[in-house]
C-alpha cells in the first residue's frame, strides 16, 4: 500500500498501545485509552482500521466498535482480547459486526497481514447502504430467495418452521448432501445452521460456503457455551448472526429478516462483497471432513454461476 494506513488502537493498558504503535511504525497510528476520544478520532482522522481491546474500565470494546461503525462505517473493526467470554463474542457478531477477533498474545506477522488486508478493503471496497431495504424490496427478496435450514434435530426444525414458515420459503436439510442439492436448485438468501449436532460438525461446511459464496449470510444456532468455536466462526466463517438455544422467536425472526436484507443489498452491490469474505479455514488444518470427499467441495465451488446470474 503506497499510502500509510491510518490505524486507531484503543486499550486501557498503555504498554499494549506502545507495542502496537511500534509494531505498525511504518503507518499512521493513533492510540488512546479514552473511548470518547477514539469515537471522535475515528471520523476526524479518517481511520481505516480500528484495533480495540474488549475489556476496558469505561466501556466494552464491542460497544465502542458498534458506535465507531456508525460514525466511520468504512473502517474495518478488529477486536483484541485477552480472555473471551461467550457474551462478548456474541455481541461482537450480532451487534458490532467485527471483521476479525484477535487473541492476546497475538502473532506480529499475522496481525500485520490482517491489518494490511483490512486496510485494503476499507479503502477499496465500498460499504453497503446503511439504510435497511424498503418494504417492496423486502417483499421481492422474500419471493426470490429462500431460507435454507441445515439441521437434523426435528424439534429445532419444527421450532424454526413455526417461527419462519409464514414469512419465508423455508427448506430443510438434515445432511450435507441434501443441503447441496437445495443450494443448487434454489436461490438461497440465508443459511441457518446448527454449529454442531450428533451428526457431526457443520462449521466446516459453513466456513467453506462463506469462502466461495460470501454473498449468503449465515445464521448459526448453537447451544454450546464455547467461545473459541464462536471466534473461529467469526474469523473463518464471517457468521452474520449467532443465536443461542433455545431459539427465541423475536431474535430469530429479526436475525433472518436482517440477513435477507443483507443478501439483497449485496446482490444489488456485489462490489461490496470483499468486506465479508474469508480465506480458506485454518482451524481445520486444511483437512476436510470425509463427507466433503464425494465431489461436494467441487459442487460448492461451482455454485455461483448457477445461482447468481446477475452477480457472476
Amino acid at each position, binding site marked *: 500500500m503506497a499510502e500509510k494506513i491510518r490505524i486507531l488502537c484503543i486499550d486501557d*493498558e498503555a*504498554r*499494549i498501545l*506502545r*507495542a*502496537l504503535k*511500534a*509494531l505498525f*511504525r511504518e503507518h499512521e497510528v493513533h492510540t488512546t485509552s479514552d473511548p470518547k476520544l477514539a469515537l471522535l478520532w475515528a471520523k476526524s482522522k479518517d481511520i481505516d482500521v480500528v484495533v480495540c481491546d474488549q*475489556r*476496558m*474500565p469505561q*466501556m*466494552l470494546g464491542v460497544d465502542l466498535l458498534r458506535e465507531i461503525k456508525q460514525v466511520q462505517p468504512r473502517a474495518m473493526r478488529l477486536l*483484541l482480547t*485477552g*480472555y473471551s467470554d461467550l457474551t462478548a463474542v456474541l455481541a461482537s457478531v450480532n451487534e458490532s459486526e467485527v471483521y476479525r477477533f484477535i*487473541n*492476546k*498474545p*497475538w*502473532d*506480529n506477522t499475522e496481525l500485520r497481514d490482517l491489518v494490511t488486508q483490512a486496510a485494503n478493503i476499507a479503502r477499496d471496497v465500498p460499504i453497503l447502504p446503511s439504510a435497511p431495504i424498503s418494504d417492496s424490496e423486502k417483499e421481492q427478496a422474500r419471493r426470490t430467495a429462500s431460507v435454507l435450514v441445515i439441521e437434523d434435530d426435528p424439534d429445532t426444525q419444527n421450532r424454526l418452521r413455526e417461527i419462519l414458515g409464514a414469512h419465508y420459503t423455508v427448506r430443510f436439510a438434515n445432511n450435507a448432501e441434501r443441503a447441496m442439492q437445495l443450494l443448487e436448485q434454489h436461490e438461497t438468501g440465508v443459511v441457518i445452521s446448527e454449529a454442531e449436532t450428533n451428526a457431526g460438525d457443520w462449521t466446516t461446511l459453513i466456513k467453506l460456503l462463506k469462502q466461495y459464496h460470501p454473498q449468503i449470510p449465515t445464521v448459526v444456532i448453537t447451544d454450546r457455551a464455547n467461545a473459541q468455536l464462536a471466534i473461529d466462526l467469526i474469523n473463518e466463517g464471517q457468521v452474520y448472526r449467532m443465536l443461542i438455544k433455545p431459539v427465541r422467536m423475536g431474535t430469530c425472526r429479526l436475525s433472518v429478516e436482517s440477513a435477507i436484507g443483507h443478501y439483497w443489498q449485496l446482490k444489488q452491490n456485489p462490489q461490496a462483497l470483499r468486506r465479508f469474505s474469508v480465506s480458506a479455514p485454518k482451524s481445520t488444518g486444511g483437512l476436510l471432513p470425509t463427507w466433503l470427499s464425494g465431489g461436494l467441495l467441487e459442487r460448492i465451488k461451482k455454485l455461483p454461476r448457477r445461482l447468481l446470474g446477475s452477480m457472476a
Partner: protein
Amino acid sequence: MIWILAILLLLAAAALIWLWLARARLLVEHQSASEALKRMQTTQSQVMHTNKLASLGQMVAGVTHEINTPLGFLRSNAQVVTELLEEHMQIVGKIASALGKFEQVDLAQPQAQEALRRLLPKMQAALKNDERIAESRALLHDALEGVDQISSLVKNLKGFARVDRDGQELWNVNEGVESALMIANHQMKDRIEVIKNLESVPLVRVMPSQINQVFLNLITNAAQAMHERGTLTVSSRRNGETVEIEFSDTGSGIPSAVLPKIFDPFFTTKPVGEGTGLGLSIVHKILTSHQGDIKVHSTPGHGARFTVILPVDHAALKSHSAITRDPA
C-alpha cells in the same frame, strides 16, 4: 427362699437379656448413625471439592485474562526490538564498510581528509538520529515490567491456592484480600470500582487457602449483585480480640425475607444452573471451623455488607499491640 432366689435369678436373667437386646439395638443404631455420618462427610467433602473446583475455574479464567495482556506486548515487543536492532545493524554495517574504504587510502592526502570530513558528520547524524535504539529501550523497559507483572501474578496465585502447603498458619488477612481481588479482577475490571481500606491488623491463625476461598466467594457474589456499574468497598480492621474484614457492595441487596436463609445449604436465588446454593453455606462452615463468624446487613436496592470475623492469634496480638502503639 428358693422361690425368691429363683425369681431373683429369673429377674436377673431377664435384665441381662433386656440389656443384651438393648445393647444390640444400640449397636445397630450406632452403626446406622455412623454410616449416615460417613455418608454426610463424604457428601460434604464432595461439595467442598466441587466448590474448590469452581473457584479453580474462576482462578484460571482470571489469571488467563490477566496474563495474556502482558504476554501480548511482551511477545510483540521482543519481535519488534529484534527488527529494530536488525535495521540499526544495517546502518552500522554501512558506516563500517564506508570507513573500511579508508584503510587503503593514505590519510595524509588532502582529498582523503576532505572526503572524511564530509562523511563523518553524516555518519554521526545517522547514528545519533537513529531512534530505533531509544525505541528499543522503551519497548524493553515495558517488557521487563510485563515480566514483573506476570511474576507477581504467579506469586499471588501461589499465595491464593497455597499449593505448596495446607495447614494452619499465622497469616495477614490483607494478603488474602489482595490475592482474592486479583483473582476476581476480570469479573470486575470493566464495570466495578474497588475501594480498599485495609488497616494494619494483627495476624490470625487460619488455613489461608480456605479463608481465601471465603473472600473470593464474597467478592464474586458482590460482583454478581452489581449488574451494571458499582462500587465494592473492602475494609479490614481490628475489633478487640478479632479481625473484621468487610465486603460492601452497591448492588441489588438482599430482600429481608431471604436474609435469614442465605447461609442454608442449597439455598439460592440464582437461575437454575448458575448457582449451587452452596457458596455461602460453605463460607459459613469454613468460618465456624475457624472459631470465626460472618454477619450480613442489607438494605434491598442499596447493596449488601458482609463482615467476616476471625479471632486474633494471642501470641500475635502481643506483638501487634506493640506495633500499634508506634505512632507511625
